[in-house]
């Protein structure tokens, strides 16, 4: 097909926009990484000299050992609990038709659509009055609000594509509910569960708003600690804040890389196609 000049110009313009965006994105990330290794970087294209000592000072100044421990405890608990709550619910939603199902679906859809800061403020109020907020339990509970529905919406279409006759066959051969679950369903569902939980993991490490609203001084996760460090910029050197930012990036991107081995990148944004939205 012969393409006209204006069409080719248009294509070039579209790609130019994409390349411009990606270049700026990488330059922004590059600035953070370079800054964290810089001895001094003022008024030049590149730092004067390089050093790794900011990582040591960031580790001590921001008590990253404690912060990382809290982060992994909270994230681990969120991943586990959202799997335990979400997968059985998704199984029931995929296998049963019952009155009020649309209403239940809407109930699970809302926490994913309403932005965290909007429902986070009343939720933090309730959690503070109950004495849960300010502890790691507050962080875990608040982070479960978007992740449980997320697991459900990733898992429902996955379970629907598994033939229910497989379960029926297992029943015919005398498998009880326990064995059916352990030997038939779990192996079949494992790839879907893995993908869903990895996405929960990545999202929870990066979840700022809910953790910020419910964390106390001892229950800050990495992203909240980073926020406070940037907020109080000037107290610490820029380089050690950036060293912390690099540690945060490394943590997040490591898990993103793991997750991307099992899921399509678009899944991080779009949920199952048949969500009805």
């Amino acid at each position, binding site marked *: 097909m012969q393409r006209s000049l204006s069409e080719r110009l248009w294509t070039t313009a579209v790609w130019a926009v994409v390349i411009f965006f990606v270049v700026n994105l990488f330059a922004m990330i590059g600035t953070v990484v370079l800054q964290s290794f810089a001895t001094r970087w003022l008024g030049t294209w590149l730092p004067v000299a390089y050093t790794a000592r900011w990582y040591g000072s960031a580790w001590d100044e921001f008590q990253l050992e404690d912060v990382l421990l809290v982060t992994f405890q909270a994230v681990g608990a969120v991943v586990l609990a959202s799997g335990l709550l979400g997968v059985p619910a998704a199984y029931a939603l995929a296998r049963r038709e019952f009155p009020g199902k649309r209403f239940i679906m809407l*109930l699970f859809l809302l926490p994913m659509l309403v*932005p965290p800061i*909007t429902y986070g403020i*009343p939720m933090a109020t309730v959690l503070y009055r109950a004495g849960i907020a300010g502890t790691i339990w507050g962080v875990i509970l608040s982070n479960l609000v978007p992740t449980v529905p997320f697991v459900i919406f990733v898992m429902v279409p996955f379970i629907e594509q598994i033939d229910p006759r497989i379960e029926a066959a297992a029943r015919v051969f005398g498998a009880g509910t326990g064995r059916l679950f352990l030997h038939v369903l779990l192996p079949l569902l494992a790839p879907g569960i893995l993908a869903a939980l990895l996405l929960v993991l990545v999202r929870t490490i990066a979840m700022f*708003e809910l953790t910020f609203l419910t964390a106390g001084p001892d229950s800050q996760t990495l992203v909240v600690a980073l926020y406070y460090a940037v907020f109080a910029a000037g107290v610490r050197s820029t380089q050690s804040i950036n060293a912390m930012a690099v540690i945060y990036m490394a943590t997040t991107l490591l898990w993103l890389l793991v997750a991307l081995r099992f899921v399509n990148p678009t899944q991080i944004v779009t949920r199952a196609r048949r969500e009805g939205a």
Partner: protein
Amino acid sequence: MSVPLRLRLAQRGLDSTTLLIAPAALFVVALFVYPFLYGLVLSFQPKTGGMFANYARFFSDPFLYDTVSRTLWIAVPVTLLNLLVAVPVAMRVRRMRRQRLLTTILVIPITLGTVLVAEGLLNYLGPQGWLNRALIWAGLADAPVRLVHNYWGVFLSLVITGFPFTFLLTLSYVTGIDPALEQAGAMLGARARARFAHIVLPLLMPGLAITFCLSFVQAFSVFPSAVLLGAPAGPTRVISIAAYTAAFEEYDYAMASAIAMVMAAAQVGTVILVLLLRRLFYSGPVSGGKG
């Protein structure tokens, strides 16, 4: 009257398997629905004054009610820009074989989150940052352009995190349109622009409306970058900052709840408006059928 209740319920789909939904549903009710209703009730129980005192205060104090227009002034242009750029890019990318590299790159800023993007942009857009150096070097500016601690800092951070989100969502809708429909148009002699305007765009409209809503709601609830990259006391004092200040600096939870309710109402209002506008356009299947 011989069929036991259990069987009758099972016939309607209510058996022990259905009960597996209960823990998750109860959790969402306890930590999402209940707090929201609690906040709604609390907002009508102000520290001082009558039932509507919080809302009366919000809509009479310019320091508070201005936050709505300020947030809109950031969120609407950003969302429109992201959407207008995302559509042509998605139209191009859907024909690409190796989409995965691009989608992987674009997922990075979403994964890193707004706090890290704010920290990165503080360096990158700052007076000594690479962007300003490049502008001066290219002769596009004489002195560093002020891009942080003002409106543009927040705007650009919402482009960095918002564009990939909008784009990936648009891409998933664009790839859902059956290419055979466009080929049919091409065979009948429609040029690319006509095919887009008369075939793709009408089919895409419902998806674009949803994308606009989701992107807008995210931009409207901007928080960390408005504090870190903006001027939180001035032009980028967005509504989430007002709610946060009321709750955690003034400890006036009733007022904070009222502001959160205004925020939710503004978001829901915009979504309803967009969905009503969408009704003016075609709605129907996006795949070519036999019928």
